């Protein structure tokens, strides 16, 4: 498999502000490999270091230490070459709201050195592709969130980059627009682009990404395909809820020794049990707890999700940590 992006101990430390001057280690020695042609997800809660990493990889921010090769060029020694071959859609978007979609696209082409005639042709093509005909001649200020996001994405790919970075591409969109975007992102892959996207939506990573890296507190805690990550956890997960810590502790003690439980993970007043055959084992769990006189408040069965992976790797649930 061709490697299109590789980092080696990429680190960013921000000088502290305020009286204490406490340094902030936003990214701590990140090693990543992105394969050509894949959709690579960078998953983590807000503040985990996703955007900082992305800012470094897109030449916006100089790393404190470490190195990276992006589309075959050294990020530190040759940022200009990197810029020519990557596309980037920031979280904020970056469309000029005082101009129309067409004007935005034409200027963007020109900044990438595309001659005028071709720039106009490309703008028309992209307006067509992203179904912007209806509003493409209006100023971007008047667009809805979803319309604006389409323009942002179009701006990121005018120069046909081989690698495109999308920072939280669907944050704040309604479900319908999100589904539309997922299709468009898959289409980028079909067109031969490699997509590197950050997200804190598990469904997004699950639906779109060939492989994901999980980042927490500036460190990569897991990298693999979503299936492999989930497989590591067990076939199914039983979640049992209790009314207080004492009961949770007691239940943990009672269940820890059981052979059929592959992994056991406490979280607040809940226990996550990872097992092979949850349906038939649920009564067994209840029986054991009943024998110990432990009151069960809730019990549920589910397939392991990326959230379970995240929970195991970081001790927190992404659903709680995110947003």
């Amino acid at each position, binding site marked *: 498999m061709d490697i299109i992006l590789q980092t080696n101990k990429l680190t960013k430390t*921000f000088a502290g502000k305020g009286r204490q001057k406490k340094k902030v280690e936003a990214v701590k020695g990140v090693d990543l490999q992105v394969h050509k042609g894949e959709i690579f997800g960078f998953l983590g809660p807000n503040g985990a270091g996703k955007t900082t990493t992305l*800012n470094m990889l*897109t*030449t*916006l*921010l*100089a790393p404190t230490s470490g190195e990276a090769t992006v589309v075959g060029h050294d990020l530190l020694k040759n940022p*200009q070459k990197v*810029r*020519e071959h*990557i596309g*980037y859609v*920031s*979280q*904020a*978007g*970056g*469309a*000029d*709201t*005082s*101009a129309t979609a067409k*004007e935005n696209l034409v*200027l*963007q082409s*020109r*900044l*990438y*050195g595309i001659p005028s005639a071709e720039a106009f042709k490309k703008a028309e093509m992209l307006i067509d592709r992203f179904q912007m005909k209806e509003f493409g001649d209006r*100023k971007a200020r008047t667009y809805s969130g979803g319309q604006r996001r389409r323009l942002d994405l179009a*701006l990121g790919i005018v120069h046909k980059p081989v690698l495109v970075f999308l920072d939280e591409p669907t944050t704040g969109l309604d479900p319908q627009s999100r589904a539309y975007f997922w299709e468009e992102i898959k289409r980028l892959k079909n067109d031969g682009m490699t997509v590197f996207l950050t997200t804190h939506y598990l469904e997004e990573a699950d639906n779109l990404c060939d492989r994901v890296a999980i980042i927490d507190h500036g460190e990569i805690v897991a990298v693999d395909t979503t299936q492999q990550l989930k497989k590591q956890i067990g076939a199914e997960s039983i979640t049992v809820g209790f009314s207080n810590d004492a009961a949770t502790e007691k239940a943990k003690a009672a269940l820890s020794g059981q052979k059929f439980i592959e992994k056991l993970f406490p979280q607040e007043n809940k226990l996550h049990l990872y097992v092979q055959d949850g349906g038939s084992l649920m009564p067994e769990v209840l029986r054991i707890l009943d024998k110990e006189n432990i009151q069960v408040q809730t019990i549920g069965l589910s397939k392991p999700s990326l959230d379970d992976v995240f929970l195991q790797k970081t001790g927190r649930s992404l659903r709680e940590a995110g947003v």
Partner: protein
Amino acid sequence: MKFLKDLWYLFVRHMMKTLRMPLWLFIGLMQPVLYLLLYMPLLKNMSGGAGIPADEIAKMFVPGMLVVMAMGQLFAGFSFIDEIRVGIIARWLVSPASRLSIILSLVGSQKITLFLQASLLVFIAFLFGLHVPVLGLVLTMVMVLLVGVAMASLSYAISLATKDESALASITNTFYLPIMLLSGIMLPISVAPQWIKTAALFNPFYYAVEGARCLFDGDYGNTMVLKGFGVVIALCVLMIWLALRALKKMAA
């Protein structure tokens, strides 16, 4: 050449944006008119009963007014901070666009507005009876535009470093007033007490104003002219460098 192309395309974009908000242009043009209409008549009756001839007052007052206007470019960053916030600048920085062209296109487009304002002020001053040699007027305009370049660049540098309108407002307001008063814009520094004269020597805009007054008088050989241009050009280089540096460090 990529730099010149980028400069032109970005400049056109900024001009389009300005022209689409004619209200701001209008408000910018109002300022010089108000100064001339509401302030200059006061000067007329200042020096005892006799009064100075209108021509003399205009000659002393208009150069200072032009420099004040140029210093007003310190506020250029306000509309720019929003462009940082919505990610336009980051998008340009990820592209191979020349970084210097990003700064100079912004600074340059502001100069068109400044040129219009300054021309209007001079035109009205003519109606008030101003007489100026053509060369003096042209050179003064160049000086004024250079002051504008320095001030707009400084404004962009502060905007890029703080990304915050209220920070930009408090920094600019803190410096604007003392620098303006110490440059002898309202009245020549020559009528000031010694300590103010000494303080003014450290104010670059004092040289710009005095230089412009010499130019208006047709006194081209005066050392103040050379000093004025020297100081202002040095200031431009320094401020553009600061803005460029701030642009490159924007994401930090």
